[in-house]
C-alpha cells in the first residue's frame, strides 16, 4: 500500500473493494445490474445486516452470539404458528421480538451470572433452539405461510418502495444508525466498549458490566428475531433450517468490518460494508449459474481474503499511528 493507501481508513478500503466487485460483476455477469439482482442484493444485505448490527454490539462488549441463526429460525417458526392460529400482525410482531429478547436475556445471564464463556453459552443456545424448531414443526421440513406478508405494514412499504429495493431495507437503516449512535455517542456505548476492552477496569469504576453485557445479548436476540420474521414474509413460509449459518456469516462480517477480536471496538459502518460484500458475491456468483458447492467455495475464499486483508490493514494502521505519534 502506498502513501494514499496508508491514509485511508479500513472502511474506505472496504468501500473500494465493494465498488470493484460491483464493477467486475456488472461487466462479467449478465443481469447483475438489473433490478431483480439488485433487489436480491438488498434483500440479503437487509437480512444479514440486521443480524450483524446486533452481533457488532455483542462483540464490542467482548462477547459473541452464536445463537443468532437459531433465534432467526425460531422467530420464523413462532410467527408461522401464530399466523396459522389466526393472530394479528401486532401480536406476531410482539411475540417474535419478545422471544428474541427473552433468549437474549438467557444468553446474557448464562454469560454473566453463570460465568460461561460466550462462545459456549451461545453455542448451547444455538443447538437447543434449532432442536425446538425441528420439534415444533414435527420433523417436517417446511411450513407454508402464504399471505403472511399480507399485513398493513408490509403492504405499505411495498407500495412505497421502488421495485429494485427490498421493502424492509429501511429497518436495516434504522437498526444501523441506532446501533452506530448507541455505540459511539452514548454512555451505554462507552460502557459497552469499556466492558469489552477491559472488564475489570470497567467494573472498578462502577460500570454495571453484567447489565451492559446482558443488554447487548438482548439487542442481538431482538434484531435476529426481526430478521427471521422478515424472512418469513419473503419466502412465504418457514423451513426448519432457516437462518442456519447466519451466526458465522454475521461473525465474519463484524470481524471483516474491523472489530477487535478481543472486544472493545466494532465499526457498524465497516460491518455493513462487509455484509454488502458478502451479499454481492452471493448474488453475483449465483447469477453466473455456478453449482451451489462452487458458490460456497467462492464465498469462502472471498471471506478468507477479506479477513487476511483486515488483519494486515489494521496491523499496519496501528504501526503507522505509533510511529507518527512518537516522532
Amino acid at each position: 500500500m502506498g502513501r494514499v493507501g496508508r491514509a485511508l481508513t479500513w472502511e474506505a478500503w472496504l468501500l473500494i473493494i465493494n465498488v470493484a466487485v460491483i464493477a467486475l460483476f456488472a461487466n462479467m455477469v449478465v443481469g447483475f445490474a438489473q433490478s431483480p439482482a439488485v433487489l436480491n442484493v438488498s434483500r440479503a444485505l437487509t437480512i444479514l445486516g440486521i443480524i450483524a448490527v446486533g452481533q457488532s454490539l455483542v462483540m464490542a462488549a467482548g462477547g459473541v452470539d452464536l445463537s443468532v441463526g437459531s433465534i432467526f429460525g425460531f422467530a420464523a417458526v413462532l410467527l408461522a404458528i401464530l399466523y396459522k392460529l389466526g393472530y394479528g400482525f401486532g401480536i406476531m410482531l410482539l411475540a417474535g421480538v419478545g422471544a428474541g429478547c427473552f433468549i437474549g436475556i438467557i444468553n446474557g445471564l448464562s454469560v454473566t451470572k453463570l460465568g460461561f464463556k460466550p462462545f459456549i453459552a451461545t453455542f448451547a443456545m444455538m443447538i437447543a433452539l434449532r432442536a425446538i424448531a425441528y420439534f415444533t414443526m414435527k420433523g417436517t421440513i417446511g411450513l407454508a405461510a402464504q399471505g403472511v406478508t399480507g399485513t398493513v405494514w408490509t403492504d405499505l412499504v411495498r407500495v412505497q418502495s421502488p421495485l429494485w429495493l427490498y421493502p424492509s431495507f429501511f429497518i436495516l437503516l434504522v437498526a444501523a444508525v441506532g446501533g452506530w449512535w448507541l455505540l459511539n455517542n452514548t454512555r451505554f456505548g462507552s460502557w459497552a466498549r469499556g466492558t469489552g476492552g477491559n472488564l475489570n477496569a470497567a467494573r472498578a469504576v462502577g460500570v454495571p458490566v453484567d447489565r451492559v453485557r446482558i443488554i447487548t445479548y438482548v439487542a442481538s436476540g431482538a434484531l435476529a428475531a426481526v430478521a427471521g420474521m422478515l424472512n418469513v414474509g419473503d419466502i412465504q413460509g418457514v423451513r426448519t433450517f432457516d437462518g442456519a449459518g447466519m451466526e458465522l456469516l454475521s461473525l465474519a462480517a463484524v470481524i471483516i468490518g474491523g472489530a477487535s477480536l478481543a472486544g472493545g471496538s466494532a465499526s457498524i459502518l465497516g460491518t455493513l460494508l462487509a455484509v454488502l460484500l458478502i451479499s454481492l458475491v452471493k448474488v453475483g456468483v449465483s447469477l453466473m449459474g455456478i453449482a451451489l458447492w462452487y458458490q460456497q467455495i467462492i464465498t469462502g475464499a472471498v471471506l478468507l481474503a477479506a479477513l487476511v486483508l483486515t488483519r494486515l490493514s489494521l496491523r499496519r494502521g496501528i504501526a503507522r499511528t505509533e510511529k507518527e505519534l512518537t516522532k
Partner: protein
Amino acid sequence: MNYMVQMKDVCKDFSDVRVLDCVDLQIEPGTVHALVGENGAGKSTLCKILAGFYPRDGGEILVSGQRVGKLDSRRALELGISMIYQEPNLAPLMTVAENIMLGQEPGFVINANQSFRRAEEILATAGFDLNVRLPVSHLTAHEKQLVEIAKAISLDTRVLIMDEATAALSAVEKEHLFTVIRKLKEQGVGVIYVTHILPEVFELAEWVTVLRNGENIGTRKVSEVTTDEVIEMMVGHKLTKATVEHRQTGMEVLRLENVSNLPEVHGVSLSLFQGEILGIGGLAGSGQRELARVIFGADRMDAGEMYVFGEKVDFKSPSDAMNCGISLVPRDRKGESLVPEMSLGHNVEMASLPTITKLLGIIDPSQERAMIRNQIQQLDIVPPMSGKVMEEFSGGNQQKAAIAKWLATKPKILILDEPTVGVDIRTREYLYGTLSELAKEGISLLLTSSDLKEVLRLSNRVLLMRKGRFVNELPGDPAMENEALRIITLGEEE
C-alpha cells in the same frame, strides 16, 4: 480520633489458603498511610478488599464510623474510595478521554468535545501532559499509569489507594505525583500508599503498616522508625545483603555498532565481555526495553551492525538469537514471559523443550522432571511445586520462574530487562546473588534497570542512556549514584 476508614479483623482466603489473617488498618483524614511488606504479604489483597474488588471472608469495615456491609466496586466509589491498581487497568481501544470519563459520563448522550475538554482539565490538575484523543493502546506503560492516576483523582475521592503506582514513573513524574498527593492531603483525603521503595515512605507518609504473611506486624509513626527497623519488620529478621563480586572478564562476546531501533534507540554501540555484568541505566522509557528487544531479535534493527562471538549477525526473530545463545527475560512477566494458567513446570520448560525431547518431539519425562527440579532449586522458587498454577505464585516467585525459564535454555548471553520491578526486598537480594553467580560461571549478562542503585551495585560497568542514546559510561560502584542521576536527568528541563 475520627478515622475515615477502619478495617477490623479482615480475613481473606483464596482456595483454602489464608492470605489475610485478622488484619486491622486505620486511616486518618489528611494523612498518607504507607503499606509495606514483601511480595505475597497480602498488601494488594487488603487494598482490593477495601476497593470492593474482592469480597472479604471475615471482619468488618467502617467508613467514617459507619459500618459497611457488602462492599462492591460501585459501593466503594459511592463511599469515596478509589484505587489505582498496580498494573494499568484501562480499555486499550478507547481514547484517553473515554478511559478517564468511563463510569462518570455526565448523561446518556455523550458530547465528545465536552469530554475531551473535561479530560484535559483533569490531566492538567494532576500536572500530566497527554493527548486525550489517542487510543490508550498507543501509550507507553508509564503514560498508561498517568491516565490511571488522573482517573482516580478525578473522582470525588476521600480515600485514595495507590498500589505501587509509581513503579513505572520517571523521577520527574514521580515528583509531580508527590505534589498531587500532598495537595490531596491538604484537602483532607486519606491515602493508602503501597510501595516497595522505602525512601518513598519516609518522604511521603505519616504512618507505616507492615504486613507479613497476611498478618499485620505493626503500625508505626514514620517519624519514630528507621529504615532498618521497617526492613526487619518486613522480613522478620535482619536482612543479609547478597555479596556481589566483580570478576575479571574475558573475551568480547557481543558488539553493537550504531544500532538503531527507531524511534526509541538511536545509533547505540557497546561491547559485552565474557563473565561480565554490563548495566544499562537511565530513566524509565529511555529506550532500554527497545534496545534489549533489538538485541534479542524481537524487533528488527533499523540500522547498524551486531556481532556475536565475532560473527556478524542479523536476527530476524528471537529464535535466531536463541540459536546464538542469547536469551531475554522481558520486564513484563505476565504479558511477555509467563502463561499464568499453566503450571510452574510447564512455564519453566517452555523455552527449552528441544533439549528435553526425543525423536519426533516427544518429551522425555525423566529429563523433563530433572530439568524442572534443577531450575526450581537453582532459583529457590517457593513453594517448589512444579504442578502448581503460575498465577498462584507471588510476584517475586513469578519473576524467579521467568528467569528460570530462560536460564534453562543455557544461554551464553542473558539479557535481563528490569528484573526486579515489583519484586520484594528479600527476593531482590536473592536474585542479585544469583546473577552474580551466573557471571562467575562465565555467562555474560546485560542488565537494564531504571533503579540506579541496583544497576551500579550489580554491574562491572554501567552505560547511561538518555532519550535512546548512550551518554556516559561509569564503573559499577554504588558511590557513583549521584553522578549517574545528574547525568541522566541532565537536559530534562529542555
